[in-house]
């Protein structure tokens, strides 16, 4: 069975036929299952944002891309995809424009042609989900603080209740608590509501702890793919393309280098267990 996102031999270049042409993606093939939590990591300029925009039907591309059973080679399918696929861009607060926070979040649902009752229900639910107080409903979105703006913008996408949620570094520039809350929210959507999640991030701890699978992009190609455990065991390779591995994986690698019998590990609880086991063995 093909995944909910199915990509075969995808090529994207910017400004083709000019001296500033750039091949952003060259020969990507990948599939994401329904309800999966997929992380995409890679150094800057490796094509992560481009890939996400292709999945959202926002860029025309060469190759076969199908999302939610729709063939994105047809413009009509790309244009209608927003009803099922939500995308949260880097710095989504740039998209705020309405007179009140409520109306801004209602923009997507209203475009979907939902009844005003349903719109109100969804906006309320989305605002609660991102932890915005009822007091800000009728404020201008431009009056909010940076973190609140980000939450409002994200609520605007959540209110459309997408089947697939594409996230492009959604927590960049937020404080640790804000980061944690949002990532909890997204992973809950994935685990409890079977929303398919594709997350572009530099937060390796998040990837290690929660993602099901990881795709590593490097210079427009897929460099590695697999579970976080498999990926982070290849510490040296990741570092050579400019990525860091989570603390626990570093620990495992350096202990193994000292000849100690530890398993590969990616999260802190695992590290704790392994270290405890080692110490017991010595005693």
């Amino acid at each position, binding site marked *: 069975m093909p995944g909910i996102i199915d990509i075969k031999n995808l090529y994207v270049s*910017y400004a*083709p036929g*000019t001296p500033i042409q750039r091949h952003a993606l060259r020969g990507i093939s990948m599939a994401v299952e329904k309800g999966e939590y997929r992380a995409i990591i890679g150094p800057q300029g490796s094509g992560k944002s481009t890939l996400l925009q292709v999945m959202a039907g*926002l860029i025309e591309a060469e190759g076969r891309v199908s999302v939610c059973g729709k063939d994105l080679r047809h413009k009509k399918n790309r244009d209608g995809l927003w009803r099922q696929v939500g995308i949260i861009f880097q710095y989504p607060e*740039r*998209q705020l*424009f309405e007179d009140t926070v409520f109306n801004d979040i209602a*923009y997507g649902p209203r475009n979907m042609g939902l009844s005003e009752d349903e719109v109100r229900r969804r906006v309320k639910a989305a605002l609660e989900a991102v932890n915005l107080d009822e007091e800000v409903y009728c404020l201008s979105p431009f009056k909010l603080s940076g973190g609140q703006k980000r939450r409002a913008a994200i609520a*605007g996408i959540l209110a459309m209740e997408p089947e697939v949620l594409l996230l492009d570094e959604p927590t960049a520039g937020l404080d640790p608590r804000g980061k944690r809350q949002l990532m909890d929210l997204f992973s809950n959507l994935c685990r409890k509501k079977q929303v398919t999640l594709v997350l572009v991030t530099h937060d390796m701890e998040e990837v290690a702890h929660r993602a099901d699978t990881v795709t590593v992009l490097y210079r427009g190609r897929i460099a590695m793919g697999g579970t976080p455990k498999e990926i982070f065991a290849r510490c040296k390779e990741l570092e050579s393309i400019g990525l860091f591995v989570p603390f626990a994986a570093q620990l495992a690698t350096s202990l193994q280098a000292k000849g100690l019998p530890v398993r590969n590990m990616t999260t802190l609880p695992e590290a704790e267990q392994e270290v405890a086991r080692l110490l017991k063995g010595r005693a």
Partner: protein
Amino acid sequence: MSLFSNITLGQYYPGASLLHRMDPRAKILALPLVMIMVLLADGTAGFIMSGIPVLLALLLAGIPPGTYWRGLKPLWAILLIGLAIQSLTYPGEKLWQWGMLSVSREGFILGMKLSYRLSLLILSTMLLTMTTTPMNLTAALEKLLQPLKKFGVPAHELAMMMTIALRFVPTLLEEAEAVMKAQQARGGSVSTGNLNQRLRASVALLVPLLAGSIRRADELAMAMEARGYRGDTGRTRLKQFKYRPVDIIVLTVLIALTIVVAADRWA
């Protein structure tokens, strides 16, 4: 691909041709000379004389002809309409008759002349901006306006305004594309739906753009002040312009040609 990638009109085209390496001041001075020549030219000799420098420059710039062609694209309509209006309204010997409409010989010739002049003007302006980086262009303009400072012309401030405006054009286009995609992902596409939906979609695009511009202007002003920007008092340049023999030769030839063309017209 990208929404704005078709805006090539006059965009800098990286290269190392003779034209790219000329002193930007010489290029700026050459442009009005070519323009005067093109506007003065009348009759076959004049048209040939004014066309040759532009043609030579087009060939020497090392830019593929397709790029010029694409650059002229938005202007075809204007050229054609001009030609049509001249041909249809100017009285004279009838070349073609179709119902009420008739094309006169004199009108057609006049229209062709107009199109020829307009194309040369546009192409020569395009050449200047395609072979000179915006930074060099404004710096050269400031240098050329320097003598007028005594008469209260704010040369530096004008050049600075131009630099800043030019600097932010790509940023604004980039931002427009990003916001457009973000709104499209919420069902607010500017290119689909009925008129009302499109109007609403353009509000959703313009408000964030305006807010972003104001925010950036604010940040820029702050950054400039923090670095002690005080206009051009005591400011020096890292890169000094220097006229080379080729610049002098080009300007001399152009002045001579302009005189000949003017003489040909009034002779």
